């Protein structure tokens, strides 16, 4: 889409490591192959998901405009970027931010990208990632290059992979932590990124690090693997390590993680995670996506057997301790930062009530005397490009260049000298970034919902905005216990806003009244985030969207009036019980007829009559694509490279790439049959025995013709080829590769999981 994409490729090449440049170029090759029809929609989908390129609502080219379902006629015509996903339709780009840690320069780049390639807004997710919406897929390689130039990757941000590794935003400055988990989270994130043992999962895999057992900053119990900092005794010495939890997860059926190990010494962290990944890859469900998360494997095997399987794998792995920082290196505070004498904005009066409220709510005194951390509360997790650049300036001016995203979809500016608070407040306010809402009931978490998510049923953001507006207006009059409650709103049962662990959670559902769809939210009460999310909320009732503010009002009033002294909201909910709450809001569940109250039939922040016709198929993680399919896709890319070499007259390199593509494809097929090959000779030997002599690779119509191409290439491998020979070799390599796709389909018994079917290959 952008006219400058080719120029960016050239301009940024010197700034990228060869490894990153190659990775992104490979993705660009995959785009080319897909456009040529040489990669199936399914394989391409998983490739792009693994680069963080996700689908977005209406990307099937259909949208209900309130009157009728319309076809969006994009210029790309029939070209698809996934099953039923139109090439030109806008998509979402997720950007991984390990443990939420960022520098000002990185904020600047993300702001530029939002402005140039998206809709001018950056969204912070509940897993400390960034998301850009309304992005054209053709622009994504440039986005990746510009990010890579400042040390950010989008690799494995989506798909069946290890997702962003999260950690407490307060890590390193927290008054309650056991130790700073940041370096461990960072080491873990980069150790598992692209790790061969993490490429063959049936679903996504989420890891979180918490600095203590009690607080809700990392919510370790809702993750596939949760790691809670602990000190333990090893041979009479106190050493850092982790309590390891496995098999947690939210989604439609939430699971609490189970204790895998009470204490794992720090040196054991990486090999143990690698062993868990291996067991998950080997034994996790692959066919049924709905049962493919780690929680289901732990349930199926039982915790003990799962543990034994992991320890058996662990015994086969080397130590990775050298990749981890010892504790004494972890706790170093950064150098003090000189504070500018003049603020960007005019000084504010310290008696200003807004400033006082901001001090009370948004400022956290660090463990290190004289320093504070400042929360920038983002409405709905959004920040505009202009604001983000403003934030980058503030980070540069007041801190040693450090800021983090939080799982509440906010930013945390750390290491701010306490005496600079009036200045930083003034500067943040200049960019509308000083709302005194952090940690209050008005600081609501919301997933994208129907705004951009293909699975969204209701407008989570519309509801969250409405509630936040109403609550902000009365915040100062609320009792402190109510002021500090948490609200989380998801657009559907998938729980991306983590509604199960909020004091008050909502998720979108649709109900019918006299044949008309009515947006509703299911109300969940009493989720307990303490103790890293120790219990999940109770579903009370589904309330029409437009009645949710009234229902919330009643619930808050009941809590304010009837709570016992110091009674937490989760405790209050348990004491009162589900029935009492259902009675409290029961009348609000009624939907008036459409003729009387048409507004009930329209969702928040929308003008169209409510409909679920726009619901799409999720890409939360793609379909399972096997290692063989990825290997065959890589071979396609090699042939593309060979063609480029041939076009520029580099004949030996072209022959080499084409020949390599054939051998690697043969190796992939052999692996699918359980035959491991360690050399080119063993590939040819295995090919002859397992695929040629058995006729498995033979084409139903031309028999051994395509298979013979490999054997011929092998015989001629040391011969210098002229241009004509090279051109022929490339054609033969392509035909051989097509035969491999067809053969793989036959190996799978025609179950259609290959990138190409036998028919496609024709």
């Amino acid at each position, binding site marked *: 889409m952008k006219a400058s994409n080719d120029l960016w490729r050239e301009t940024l090449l010197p700034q990228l490591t060869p490894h990153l440049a190659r990775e992104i170029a490979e993705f660009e090759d995959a785009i080319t192959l897909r456009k040529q029809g040489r990669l199936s929609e399914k394989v391409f989908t998983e490739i792009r998901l693994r680069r963080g390129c996700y689908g977005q609502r*209406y990307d099937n080219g259909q949208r209900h405009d309130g009157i009728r379902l319309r076809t969006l006629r994009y210029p790309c015509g029939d070209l698809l970027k996934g099953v039923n996903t139109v090439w030109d339709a806008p998509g979402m780009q997720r950007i991984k931010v390990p443990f939420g840690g960022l520098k000002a320069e990185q904020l600047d780049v993300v702001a530029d990208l939002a402005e*140039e390639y998206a*809709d001018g*807004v950056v969204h912070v997710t509940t897993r400390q990632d960034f998301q850009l919406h309304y992005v054209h897929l053709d622009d994504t390689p440039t986005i990746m290059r510009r990010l890579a130039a400042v040390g950010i990757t989008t690799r494995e941000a989506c798909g069946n992979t290890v997702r962003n590794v999260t950690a407490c935003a307060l890590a390193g400055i927290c008054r309650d932590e056991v130790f700073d988990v940041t370096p461990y989270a960072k080491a873990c994130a980069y150790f598992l990124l692209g790790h061969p043992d993490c490429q063959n999962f049936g679903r996504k895999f989420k890891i979180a690090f918490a600095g203590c057992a009690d607080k809700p900053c990392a919510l370790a119990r809702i993750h596939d693997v949760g790691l809670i900092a602990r000190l333990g005794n090893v041979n009479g010495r106190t050493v850092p390590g982790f309590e390891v939890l496995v098999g947690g997860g939210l989604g439609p059926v939430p699971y609490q993680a189970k204790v895998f190990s009470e204490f794992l010494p720090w040196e054991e962290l990486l090999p143990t995670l690698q062993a868990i990944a291996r067991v998950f890859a080997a034994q996790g469900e692959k066919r049924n996506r709905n049962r493919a998360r780690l929680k289901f494997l732990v349930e199926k095997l039982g915790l003990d057997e799962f543990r034994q399987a992991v320890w058996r794998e662990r015994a086969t792995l080397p130590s990775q301790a050298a990749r981890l920082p010892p504790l004494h290196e972890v706790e170093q505070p950064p150098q003090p930062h000189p504070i500018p004498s003049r603020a960007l904005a005019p000084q504010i009066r310290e008696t200003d009530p807004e400033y006082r409220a901001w001090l009370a709510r948004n400022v956290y005194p660090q463990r290190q005397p004289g320093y504070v951390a400042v929360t920038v509360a983002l409405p709905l997790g*959004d920040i*505009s490009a202009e604001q983000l650049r403003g934030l980058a300036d503030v980070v540069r001016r007041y801190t040693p260049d450090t800021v983090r995203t939080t799982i509440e979809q906010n930013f945390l500016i750390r290491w701010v000298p306490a005496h600079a608070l009036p200045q930083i407040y003034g500067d943040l306010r200049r960019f509308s970034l000083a709302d005194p809402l952090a940690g209050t009931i008005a600081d609501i978490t919301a997933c994208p919902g129907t705004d951009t998510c293909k699975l969204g049923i209701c407008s989570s953001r519309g509801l969250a905005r409405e509630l936040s507006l109403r609550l902000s207006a009365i915040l100062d009059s609320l009792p402190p216990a109510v002021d500090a409650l948490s609200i989380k709103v998801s657009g559907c049962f998938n729980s991306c806003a983590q509604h199960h662990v909020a004091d008050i959670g909502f998720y979108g559902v649709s109900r019918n009244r006299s044949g008309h769809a009515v947006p509703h939210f299911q109300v969940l009460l009493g989720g307990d985030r303490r103790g890293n999310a120790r219990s999940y909320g109770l579903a009370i009732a589904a309330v029409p969207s437009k009645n949710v503010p009234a229902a919330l009002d009643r619930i808050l009033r009941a809590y304010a009036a009837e709570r016992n002294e110091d009674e937490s909201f989760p405790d209050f909910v348990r004491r009162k019980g589900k029935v009492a709450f259902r009675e409290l809001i029961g009348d609000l569940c009624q939907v008036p007829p459409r003729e009387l109250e048409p507004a009930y039939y329209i969702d928040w*922040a929308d*003008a169209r009559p409510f409909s679920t016709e726009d619901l799409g198929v999720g890409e939360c993680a793609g379909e399972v694509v096997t290692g063989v399919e990825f290997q065959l896709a890589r071979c396609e890319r090699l042939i593309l490279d060979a063609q480029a070499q041939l076009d520029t007259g580099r004949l030996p390199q072209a022959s080499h790439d084409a020949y390599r593509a054939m051998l690697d494809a043969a190796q992939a097929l052999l692996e699918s049959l359980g035959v491991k090959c360690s050399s080119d000779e063993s590939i040819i030997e295995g090919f002859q025995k397992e695929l040629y002599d058995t006729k498995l690779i033979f084409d139903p119509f031309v028999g051994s013709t395509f298979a013979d191409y490999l054997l011929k290439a092998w015989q001629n491998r040391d011969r210098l080829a002229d241009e004509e020979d090279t051109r022929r070799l490339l054609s033969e390599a392509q035909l051989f590769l097509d035969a491999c796709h067809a053969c793989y389909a036959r190996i799978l018994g025609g179950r259609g999981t290959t990138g190409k079917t036998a028919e496609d290959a024709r």
Partner: protein
Amino acid sequence: MTPRDPDLWQHIGAKLLAAVFEPECLDRCIAVFHRWIQQDACEELLIDVADYRHLRLGPGVILVGHEANYSLDRSLGRPGLLYNRKTALAGTFETKLIHSLRQAYRAARRLEEEQELKGLLRFDYLRWEILCNDRLLAPNCEASWATLEKRLRDLFAACCTGYGGALRLERVGGPRDLLRAAVTLPPAENPAAILDHFLGALP
């Protein structure tokens, strides 16, 4: 970064600043933009409405299209209607700019006619911003600014011909912002008529 030939610049946006911009206009324009989609009101393929009312400095409410976005934009604290070109266009810098000016102008006139927005939204047809949404083709540097200023001056001089007064051009935003110019046309009794004439008369 060195700027390229301005005729190679793409993604030229035009923003018409508002004379009246009541906060309520953002709430109301959601329904208006949905209706525009139903009516195929613009020549671009219209996709959806994106609601960023909660960001006080930002894109406001966007009518998302394939070739371009229209938004009631609040960035830099200067509310107005932004036509943000996304796909490339053929022709000179002037051709692309005039296209964006025309699209923004038409949309603004249409918005002013919408019943829901009466009294809440009015545009100042003398005040525009021109922006180049590509930091590589049109980096925000002195050389780019000098080029942009000259090309804008020449183009808008044609618009002002016949009614006198001085055209004002200013560089707006900080060094990390997009290359952006504020254009103020000389005062006129009926600026819309002048623009009608200017944009209609141009190729």
